[in-house]
């Protein structure tokens, strides 16, 4: 069965090496777009499917040009030790 994976975690996908992937530089939790942006979601899904179908080399991760339309600071905060508070159990808090 042919598969196409989307990803916003390039390094994790590289490690797993699925047959065909497309990478979108979005924060986790927003793989197919921003909330309430139906037009953007449709455009992104279309771009992902078109790019995915065009992959010819097994293991390729095709990058899409879309950028996150919201706050640019997300890149610095994502899973950052500096920006992630610790919960009462001593573990990093998600979200």
């Amino acid at each position: 069965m042919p598969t196409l994976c989307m990803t916003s975690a390039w390094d994790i996908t590289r490690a797993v090496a699925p047959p065909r992937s497309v990478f979108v530089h979005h924060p986790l939790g927003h793989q197919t777009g921003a909330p309430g942006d139906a037009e953007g979601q449709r455009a992104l899904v279309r771009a992902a499917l078109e790019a995915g179908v065009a992959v010819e080399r097994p293991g390729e991760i095709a990058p899409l040009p879309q950028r996150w339309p919201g706050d640019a600071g997300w890149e610095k905060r994502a899973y950052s030790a500096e920006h992630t508070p610790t919960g009462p159990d001593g573990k990093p808090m998600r979200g």
Partner: protein
Amino acid sequence: MGEPGRRPEHAVRYIDRTRELYSRQAPYRWVVNDRRTDPPPWAPITKPLSALRVSLIGSGGVHRDDQDPFHFRNDTSIREVPLETPAARLRVSHFGYDVRDAERDAGCVLPLRAVRELAREGVVGSVAGPALSFMGGIYSARRVRDELAPTLLDFVLRQKADLAYLVPA
């Protein structure tokens, strides 16, 4: 063989960051497949997108309001989410990412409306219903391989799909 292409410069290094963030816990064992000795399994796509039948699979923990939520961890169950499910009836249960925007609009992680519209426009040949949804916070690679993946494949084959389209959160 099996090379991913150049890493985008701006791509967040999640493995490095989580290793640092969870440095007080035992190191997480990421799945690593050696592309040289275990190359990616390849099934060619033999039709244009406009003729493809696509199955949508999401791991963001989306489900309908009349379906049980996912367990908070290592839940390998699946929810069948009809493609026409109104947005107001979608819920999210997942511990592994900030779900606030997905709760406002599940289309962020399970693009039901987008795939419906693309099929209607003829961009995609057809989309199989229902969409398949699961909760991707499963720490056991063995359980994913032996329990979840075969169940998903069985569904996709019964849907007579040409392509399984997997969307993470």
